[in-house]
């Protein structure tokens, strides 16, 4: 995993810091249980917790 590259992509897409790395880490832990049940749920939970952490006044307008 290339942390610097992921960090640059997070900046480019205005993503919470460290989110991509956390997602890939989850996948790596389940790498050999392809389509493992619960992996998508874990990632969704992670994304939701990042949304919860976003300050209301700094929320980005993501919808098109």
């Amino acid at each position: 995993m290339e942390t610097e590259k992921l960090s640059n992509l997070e900046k480019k897409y205005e993503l919470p810091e460290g989110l991509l790395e956390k997602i890939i880490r989850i996948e790596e832990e389940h790498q050999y249980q392809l389509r493992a049940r619960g992996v998508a749920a874990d990632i969704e939970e992670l994304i939701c917790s990042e949304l919860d952490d976003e300050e209301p006044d700094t929320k980005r307008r993501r919808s098109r």
Partner: protein
Amino acid sequence: MKFKEMTIENFGVYYGRMTIDFRMPPGRNILVVDGNNGWGKTTLQKAIRFCLYGVLKSQSERLDYINDKAKREGNGHMMVQLTFEQSGKNYQVTRTVDTGGNGKPEEDFTVLVNGVVSKAPSSVIDDVLPKDASQFFFFDGEEIKKYTSLENPEATMKAIELVLGIPAIRNAIDHVETIIKSTKKKLDEEEGRDKNAAALSKEVNGYDDEVDRIEKDLKDLEEQKVKLSIWNDKIEKDLHENEAAQESLGKMNKNKSEISHLTEKFEEQTVLRMSELALLPFALLRGRLNDALESRLREKGKYQSRLQDESRLEGAIQFLKSLEPGESCACGTRIGAPEEIFINKQIENYTKRLSSLGKTTDMDLVGLQRLERAMGRIDAIKLQLPEIATRVRGIQGDIDDLAAENKKLEEKLHGIDEREIKELNKKRDSVRDQLTKIVGSIDWNEGLLKNTKVKRAQKQRELDRVSPKTAVSSRLAREIDLTKDVGKALMEYLESTVEDKRGRIQDETSEVHRMLTNKPQVYSSVRINDDYTFSLVDKEGKTVSNEGISPGEKEILALSFIAGLNRSTDKEAPIVMDTPFARLDNVHKTNVLKFLRNLGDQVVILSTDQDINASNIGTIEPYIGKKLEIKYDMKTKTSVISEVR
């Protein structure tokens, strides 16, 4: 992953229980297992794969691998136990096969991590070294040639990506898409409480899907455009080079025709020289023949003068004899006795003189005439040998110069011919056509994207009017947007990672190949394609077809690729290489031996005395940490493995 020990019991040719200790002193990383063909080298590799992955799937295969002697003794138990360490953890993997009372071979698999039994043993092993990736660590020196095939099977490609850690990113992208779909469904349910809002929400989602599709199409088109542009530039470059090549071809043809003309002239001069050489002896004899002729001519003069003298004396004698006494001489003198005495005296004188002339022999006047004619012809010979030699040297020099120039031109052309140039022109036209179409498609899709976004915004406004956003729907919408951005970022990360890894493998493989090849002056690097197929590139930058290289070269190329792949991954595992030098010549063999210690932290070589022996073991001697020997008992048909160093 670093092997510690392997215990095998009644596995294949190995009867009873025996343990191999893989641990070696620091600084030494090569373990050599020596054994003849059929004595159980490959069985050891099979034992590792059986233990980790249970590769004996069918019942009959499992039964086959239980040692025959053990089976005859009624022992239907077979076991392989491997201990290793990885990332500071100790693993003990045990796989057994037992034939129970019903004779069916039952398999049992246990994994202990730091002494604790794992509930998901297969996952543990997959986490350490997945089965598909293991083919790049445990392999047969000869079979690896399959990786040089021109069409890479999908399974191999997936295995390579597995070693490189790509599947985690691909799976993340798949999971993110699943999340987007399920969240959209939740949003639809939230927003679609009344029918009108539900219809509008559906339309908005439809536009969202449409936008995604167009954006994806645009991305694909842009990628195609980039690829085609690169291709176009390459063809243009080739054509530019080939313009010069065309000129060179013209010059070469002209030179060839000139060489042909000069060769004819050379042959003419050669014929001329031969005929002059045939006359050379006469020219050389000219002096002596001239002397002979002059001598003969002098003889002829003497001969003729003597003939005249003879004739004159004979005539005088005859005339004097014709004078009768009493007759008058022509001068009017009457011949009397004194005159008669005088006449007789004169006759006597003349006869004496005639006899003093000696006997005149006939001279060969015909031979003399022939000699005179020959002399005339020889005098006419004007030899030009020095001039001819100068001309021949000049022509030969011109031919050599032209041939040398053509050789240089040929080297510059690298075998390019006119057909190839025509083919390049055709390709360029085709690529340009495709580029034009793609640019048109991009313009059209960009227009479509703009319109779709406008329509979507209109529908969203309508939806907001009839169904004001609730806190839940707003939250879901934000989740979708964030997840979409995550998906885009992950896709970008995947593309860049794949490209980087491919480049890394290419560099590493090329470096290893330069160390292993027996033709370092011919090959410069190895090219790894998008689908991980690979081929050699020569010093001129031209790709060499894998079909055109020898089996030994393929083995070296594949080994370079495996080494390159292993150097490009975070996965660490021992290298277990069976029959490493099957088809290799001595140069390749020596190069591989020199490289062995760099192949991995732990390198296990399963070899015969044909592979590693007294003549070459010196190359790796300082790095051999352990040497094992397999002994086969012909009577019991079983093998024993023991440490010899």
